[in-house]
């Protein structure tokens, strides 16, 4: 996989000595959708701002397509489009003008055909002569996306693209983002919603207090997530696990009354039948069995708690 953005030892300390990013290392691959998942104030926007030149870097290096974002800012920034978290626009400007402006600002020759296609793809073409203020919130965000894509960037940053957007529009936005990926754009999006990260992203980075706590392929995370635990209640105190049960990697619960067994329900053999047979042989008496599933939400909460 080809790396398109390379972040090394990035630190950001704001003027009030707030450490917003603390030694962030991250590689973003060409063509992927990566979701930055984290609570309010985690540092997601700061990370994006540092890459795009909106906020100054305290220390560390960022390269976009091999170009340093400080030393070779022109080349680096040409490859980037950004949609900010807050809806910011010139209220009285027409949609088409503001999109054309963005393209020129990024030093690109006018290209009516490209802009027309872009606006059509985002369902904005009919509204191209309206002033932005007169559009609905969801449409305004699309205008910002159109502006960000107007100069044909390779990388698109979407800072909370679905914040404050209703269910219908959110699905619409997800589709739009998927389509963009199919057209070859690398996408970095931030979100609070686990389901959004789960649905959209190829990889998920969990970020909190300015640190990346975890980054993995979504599928791996889901594998982890789909682990189940079998809880076996017994009527006697268990102090030691019988040798015969050694291969099952059992845990003893805190009150010493239960045995806990982790398994993946997706696998053909979960090992439950054998385990229960072996337990029977040891003579432990069972009262009840119960299963527990952890999901990404719990993993997330767990990670944040341990941080």
């Amino acid at each position, binding site marked *: 996989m080809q790396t398109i953005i390379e972040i090394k030892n990035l630190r950001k300390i704001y*003027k009030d000595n707030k450490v917003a990013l603390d030694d962030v290392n991250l590689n973003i691959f060409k063509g992927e959708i990566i979701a930055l998942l984290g609570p309010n104030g985690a540092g997601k926007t700061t990370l994006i701002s540092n890459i*795009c030149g*909106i*906020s100054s870097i305290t220390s560390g290096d960022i390269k976009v397509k091999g170009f340093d974002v400080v030393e070779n800012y*022109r*080349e680096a920034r040409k490859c980037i489009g950004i949609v900010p978290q807050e809806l*910011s626009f*010139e209220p009285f400007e027409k949609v088409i003008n503001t999109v054309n402006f963005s393209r020129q*600002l990024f030093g*690109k020759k006018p290209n009516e055909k490209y802009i027309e296609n872009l606006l059509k793809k985002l369902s904005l073409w009919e509204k191209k002569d309206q002033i932005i203020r007169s559009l609905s919130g969801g449409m305004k965000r699309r205008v910002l996306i159109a502006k960000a894509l107007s100069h044909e960037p390779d990388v698109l940053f979407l800072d909370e693209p679905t914040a404050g957007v209703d269910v219908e529009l959110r699905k619409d936005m997800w589709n739009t983002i998927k389509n963009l990926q199919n057209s070859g754009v690398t996408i970095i999006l931030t979100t609070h919603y686990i389901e959004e990260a789960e649905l959209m992203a190829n990889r998920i980075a969990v970020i909190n207090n300015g640190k990346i706590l975890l980054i993995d392929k979504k599928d791996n995370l889901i594998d982890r997530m789909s682990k189940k635990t079998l809880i076996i209640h017994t009527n006697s105190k268990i102090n030691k696990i019988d040798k015969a049960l050694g291969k099952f990697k059992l845990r003893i619960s805190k009150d010493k009354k239960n045995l806990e067994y982790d398994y993946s329900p997706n696998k053909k053999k979960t090992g439950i039948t054998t385990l229960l047979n072996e337990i029977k042989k040891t003579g432990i008496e069972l009262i009840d069995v119960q299963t527990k599933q952890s999901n990404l939400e719990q993993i997330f909460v767990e990670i944040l708690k341990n941080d």
Partner: protein
Amino acid sequence: MINFRSIKAIYIFEMSRTFRTLIQSLISPILSTVLYFIVFGTAIGNNINFTNEIPYGAFIVPGLVILTISMQSVNNASFGIFFPKFLGTTYEILSAPISYVEIVIGYVGASATKSFCLGLLILITSTFFVDLNIKFPILMLCMLLLSCVSFSLLGFIIGIVSDNFEQINFVPMIIITPLVFLGGSFYTIDVLPDFWQTITLLNPIFYLVSGFRYSFFGTGEVNILISIFSISLFILLCIIIIWRIFKTGYKIKT
């Protein structure tokens, strides 16, 4: 390598904002100029004579032009850069592949263009009231341009440093207007008591008005070279401040 396309984008964007409100942006400065002419030039002016050759009505033309374009340049440039800050659209400028110099050329250029045109309009308006024979037209245009650029640079600084609309209006009202009025726009300083004459020599706008007046009538209170030198000094000072602002990201980058 200069990115002309980006400069042009900012420049045209800024100019088109003016065209949306063209009538307002022209009527008020021209109307106030006309009022000045009626009151000072015609009503009172007939009884005043500072210089034997020049009628008072003509004498105040350079000062009036400076008065208007200084206010307009500062306003144009400060709002030009303050609005994006206020609306949050600076993110786009900052993330674009353009240098600070190009940003400044775009914004200051647009602002200076607007006030330069306005200055010419005021000159044309004044010919309805007085006979104007401009002695050094090229010099006059250069001085006008330099003034527009210098006050636009100042306005750009004010727009960046300001946090709200009140602060933007504060500097022009509290500093620039008094300096223009006391800088010999409506009188020659030899009518002032010695003490105030000395004070006036510290007023940068005095040199500007004097130099500008020289280009009209061939006489000024100070040598034209001193005037040009002091304007250039002022422009240089503004450029250094802007350079520092961008270098440190003060009030622009977080």
